[in-house]
């Protein structure tokens, strides 16, 4: 393709979509630069899937403008389909077909692309080449779904929750694959509700809630933006020995204190001051510490700070 390359692989302006009485996407703006992996984060029902399906041309928006690879679905659908790779959330392929048969089928729809055999090698399913899809493990099925998205050598990949429901090892394997694709220069739009996934794979992330972007930036910028560097989590005391949280809020280096499911979460700016102060306060109240953990602030903490809720709250 010798057309002048657009600066953005994907450009969304003021996108809206309403289902009956639910506003799924509410005036969304988004830019995915070429060659970048962009993460769309948010809890279930935040509007991630609706957004990505509008970008994939599977759902029509109520209003707003979506420009994919410099083209529009209304006028360039056939051209666009050839240049996109799509993985739907929980793709189910025909269980009775083998890995090779399925990829040959998908390959036949695209003008360009590597032979099905090469794609099988890329996603490391050589041993399963002639096995039926029905007999694959969850991780293998997800790699197969990714393979189906890759057969047309897409410039832009849409991956909708590619690792949901996988065990840690299968997730890591898929992450390595996605990193390879990034090295090959493909643009990727990825949705996930795993913050560690976004932190590892994405150059930029947009955090979505109730159909809107509530934060946008690199993972590092977002974590920095909430002004917390560390989170201290501890359990102390027991029945009849209630901990008084008020004095904790006044400790040096502590920004916020919250009790949650029997443990306490404290957001700390300076860990080296906060921890000794906490221990001293517990000793003063004569309450024994049963568990203490600290971690550097993550995108999860960004979400909690912005919305007061956890990402995977129902």
């Amino acid at each position, binding site marked *: 393709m010798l057309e002048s390359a657009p600066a953005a692989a994907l450009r969304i302006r003021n996108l809206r979509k309403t289902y009956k009485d639910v506003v799924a996407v509410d005036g969304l703006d988004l830019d995915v630069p070429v060659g970048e992996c962009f993460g769309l984060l948010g809890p279930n029902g935040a509007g991630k899937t609706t957004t990505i399906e509008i970008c*994939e*041309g*599977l759902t029509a928006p109520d209003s707003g403008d979506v420009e994919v690879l410099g083209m529009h679905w209304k006028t360039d659908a*056939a051209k666009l*389909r*050839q240049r996109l790779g*799509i993985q*739907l959330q*929980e*793709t*189910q*392929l*025909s269980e*009775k*077909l083998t890995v090779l*048969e399925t990829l*040959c*089928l*998908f*390959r*036949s*729809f*695209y003008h360009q692309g590597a032979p099905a055999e090469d794609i099988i090698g890329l996603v490391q399913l050589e041993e399963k080449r002639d096995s039926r899809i029905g007999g694959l493990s969850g991780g293998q099925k997800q790699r197969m779904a990714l393979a*189906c998205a890759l057969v*047309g050598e897409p410039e832009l990949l849409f991956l909708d929750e590619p690792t949901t429901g996988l065990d840690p090892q299968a997730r890591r394997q898929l992450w390595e694959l996605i990193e390879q694709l990034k090295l090959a220069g493909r643009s990727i739009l990825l949705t996930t509700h795993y913050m560690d996934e976004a932190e590892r794979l994405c150059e930029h992330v947009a955090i979505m809630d109730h159909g809107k972007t509530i934060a946008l930036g690199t993972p590092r910028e977002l974590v920095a933006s909430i002004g917390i560097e560390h989170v201290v989590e501890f359990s102390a005391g027991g029945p009849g020995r209630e901990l008084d949280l008020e004095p904790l809020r006044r400790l040096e280096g502590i920004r916020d204190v919250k009790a949650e499911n029997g443990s306490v979460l404290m957001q700390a700016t300076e860990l080296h001051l906060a921890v000794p102060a906490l221990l001293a306060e517990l000793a003063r109240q004569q309450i024994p510490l049963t568990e203490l953990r600290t971690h550097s602030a993550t995108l999860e903490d960004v979400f909690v700070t912005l919305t007061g809720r956890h990402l995977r709250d129902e």
Partner: protein
Amino acid sequence: MNSAPVDSQIHSPAARSRFADHPLTQLTLVRFREFLREPEALFWVFIFPILLAAGLGLAFRNRPPEVLQIAAVSPNLARSLRTEKLLSVSEFSPENGLQALRAGKVALLATPGSNGVVVYAYDDTNPEGRTAKMLADRAVQRAAGRIDPVGSKDRILREPGSRYIDFLIPGLLGMNLMGSGIWGLGFTIVDSRRKKLIKRLVATPMPRHYYLLSFGLSRLLMLVVEVGVLVGFGAFVFKVPVRGSLLDLAVLSLVSSLAFGSVGLLIASRAQTIEAVSGIMNLVMMPMWILSGVFFSAQRFPDVIQPVIHVLPLTAVIDALRANMLQGAGLVQLAPQLAILGCWMVVCFTVALKIFRWR
């Protein structure tokens, strides 16, 4: 790669691979693979109709003329009656004879009455009794010296083409075409939609009409086997005649299959669950199983509903198949039925395309 002549474009590796890699080829292959890897489907489409035809063919096979059991009370009478080959005569005492008659062991009891009269005791509502009476009386009269004033000769006709099995095979063939057209499309499409497989395909550059066309193509190839197996079975095992041209039969089967395929497509165009589509399929097929004359003639239904019965696709298919196979009717004579099928095909396909749910 092979020894095909150079001038044959089709056989060059490049052309062959272009054919093999064509989306329509691949989609049709998928249809076949999915079908062949489902043993139940194979049973219902190929084995079941044969079992049904074999079972019903055996039950309604033409037996040799039956010999009727009768009883005679006197030895003289018994001797005269034994001249009739279609009667098997036993001698009884009057009481035992009456008992055997009541128990249905014999169809008739012949007793000598006063003045040389013969008394026949039988149930006149039982066809066997009536037949036995006529045969017995003829034997008694002839034995007594009667000469029939008009001579007669029998010519026995037991020709293929007018037996129940001849009626049945085209009926089963029609039923089979309907079943595989409607079930084959209905279940596959709704199952793919339920599993979001259709949505996944629509997300690729696959031309949508290829998807629907692949069902038509696979039906077409399967048809050859389906029709061949059933007609071949009927012809070889029961000598069911195929009097019309095979080409006409092929065209007829093709049109029927496409008409039922369109009906199946329409049924499957919106449904999102297997339960829903099963319900609609049964609702559509049940009246035709009953009304369209698969197992007995549709003429038996009241005249009022005959016009309705005649426009049902299965009635048209079965009428046309019977006319073709049993009477040797050509396509011209079958034009009315073909027109009915054509209408079903065009209307259902057009509506299905309009309302088809692609996700």
